[in-house]
């Protein structure tokens, strides 16, 4: 395999993980913008997306695409319930307390998943069968293309929601200043609920798209949550586009580190990159630095 083809292969591998991290980072970012807290249950939305798709397919006998849709809808519902039961009662608490609550929620959800679905990993068939595609000398699984497509649609959808709709305007207003938004007549409680619904949907989309490639298990949530969170910090919390770019960069950095160094440093590279950004540019790579005006 020539160097160019190898490089292309590494880049595609990086973009594959990058897309997953991007979707997760988006979930983190929108919740942070709406509540000021980091929702570590985001990883469980990813897990539930895959799990519920497998369940719909196997237990309900529903066709694959419908199973995926059902999984996304159910996960969004669960995300809203989680918000109502765990976040809403403590919405004015210290963000740190909210973070701890979401960590607890994450453990609860994964334990329930283990009881409902068992401890073993479960497979999902790919959306389209067939061999890998040959692109620029590299081999790309068809499912990876689906993943990129869905990521692009999710990002586009979210962007349109935020910038073109009245509700999106309300969401942005609440993110900037919740009190002021309330004074302007925006029901911030609905904003938070819808935000969680979207975060659940984003996590589930990632889960459904990726499970055909990786299998799913009750325990996959926390590690993907950490990666997604790192990606969000890397790009800059609070801006959807920045989060997506953060995700892609993280994925590429991991993949290229395997090429350049050794696979032993793959995870270390991700963390080192994050640390570097936190030290040198804490607001994230793509955010404008906040300057306090007196």
């Amino acid at each position, binding site marked *: *395999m020539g160097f160019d083809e*190898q490089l292309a*292969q*590494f880049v*595609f*591998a*990086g973009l*594959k*993980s990058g897309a997953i991290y991007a979707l997760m980072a988006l979930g983190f970012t929108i919740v942070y913008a709406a509540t000021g807290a980091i929702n570590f249950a985001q990883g469980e939305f990813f897990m539930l997306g895959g799990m519920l798709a497998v*369940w719909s397919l196997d*237990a*309900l006998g529903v066709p694959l695409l419908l199973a995926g849709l059902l999984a996304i809808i*159910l996960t969004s*519902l*669960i995300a*809203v*319930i989680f918000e*109502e*039961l765990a976040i809403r009662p403590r919405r004015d608490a210290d963000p740190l307390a909210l973070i701890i609550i979401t960590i607890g929620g994450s453990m609860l959800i994964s334990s*329930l998943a*283990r*009881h*409902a*679905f*068992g*401890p*073993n*990993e479960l*497979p999902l068939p790919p959306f389209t069968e067939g*061999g*890998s595609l040959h692109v620029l000398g590299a*081999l790309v*699984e068809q499912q990876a293309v689906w993943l990129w497509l869905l990521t692009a649609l999710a990002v586009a959808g979210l962007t349109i929601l935020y910038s073109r709709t009245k509700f999106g305007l309300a969401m942005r207003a609440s993110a900037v200043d919740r009190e002021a938004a309330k004074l302007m007549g925006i029901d911030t*409680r609905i904003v938070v609920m819808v935000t969680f619904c979207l975060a659940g949907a984003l996590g589930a989309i990632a889960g459904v798209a*990726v499970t055909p*490639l*990786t*299998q799913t*298990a009750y*325990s*996959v949530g926390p*590690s993907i949550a950490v990666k997604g969170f790192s990606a969000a910090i890397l790009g800059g919390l609070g801006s959807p586009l920045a989060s997506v770019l953060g995700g892609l960069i993280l994925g590429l950095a*991991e*993949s290229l580190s*395997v*090429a350049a160094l*050794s*696979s*032993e440093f*793959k*995870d270390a590279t991700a963390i080192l990159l994050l640390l570097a950004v936190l030290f040198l540019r804490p607001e994230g790579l793509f955010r404008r630095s906040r300057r306090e005006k007196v």
Partner: protein
Amino acid sequence: MKNRYLALLIVLVLAFGVTLGAVGCGGDEETTTTTEEEGATETTEADGETTTTLSEEPSGDPIKVGAILSLTGPYAGLGEPEKNTIEMLVERVNSNGGINGRPLEVIIEDDATESAQTVAAASKLIDREEVVAIIGATGTGQSMAFREQVVAAEIPNVSIGGGTPITNPLSPWVFQTPWSNNIVVPFTLDYVQSKGISKVAIIADSGGFAQDGAATVEKFLPDYDIEVVAQETFEPGDTDMTAQLTSIKGSDAEAVLMWSAGSGAAVVAKNMNALEMDIPLFGSHGNARRELIEGAGAGGEGFRFAAGKVLVPESYGTDSEGYKVASQFIADYVARYGGPPDTFAGHAYDALMITVEAMRRLDADFTPQELRDEIEATSGFVGIGGTFTYSADDHNGMTVDDLVMYEVKDGAWKLAE
């Protein structure tokens, strides 16, 4: 305003409850199994309730044995068949009069595939439950984590992890029932060399069993005409090894030798298929799992690994004691759990039954030291993994004759050519 939200909340909680209930029920298997054995009838209902009509009821203080298994975490798929086996066997032992009249009680603790939790579980079993022996742990790293505790407490430990450090360096208190990497590696390398392969790439996860496997390969390599041209690692829970495999693809490896238990193995096989790597993939006895075949899909075809004979029982030799024991075990397991036992169930069978047989040879009030001595005296015990003979310098008990090479063909395990 408040009522609106309250109503919404109630609706959502109900929906959540309904969903959970539907999900919970969806996974159940409606089976009622009845097994009859030598005067005892055992009936198991769908909800797990078991009623046993006994012939001789064991009485007196129960003999307490501890078991540390990975019921959660990356090795949860290995821990579950182990737990199933232990529970089934305890009932069988107790319905046949127990051990010298005393009932057997096995207390199972979950180590979540984490060394810290293994230590906590061991403390609980040794200090609080005062067990006379411990079976486990499922994983090599976890087995090593509580080794010091059993040595200090002076109780025997029969491990069901497959790494060499468990019995090398040898501790008088620690025994092992899976085939150690020390026999699986040369058996596998013999096969690989016999296929004319001289350049291999090694890919292993960072867990204890896999790292020990990779180290053992390096130890035995000088005896073979095989060269390692690439070496890659991944974390046990990782979901994409495309980058590592791309590096391997760029080398001149003629085969990939994978050492990994747990869920990553299926991903490696799958990724190799997606990258159109047509060199053969070899694994280890950590890969004797249905989940690998299901997860790897087309990538699993042609996957070869060494393991014991329980997957294709005819390989024991249909007129051998091993075949009889295995067939009975498979039949019992299928009747109770609906599917065949795998090699991990076999390791748990061997560990528990070796301990039970040793206890049977002793008086009813034996000490842990006497139990240890008697376990070490095990000779010619026909188990699922093979025929065990322990000695003062061999706490693994098996040889390469207990292994066969398997190949995944049409989604099932067949003997490899």
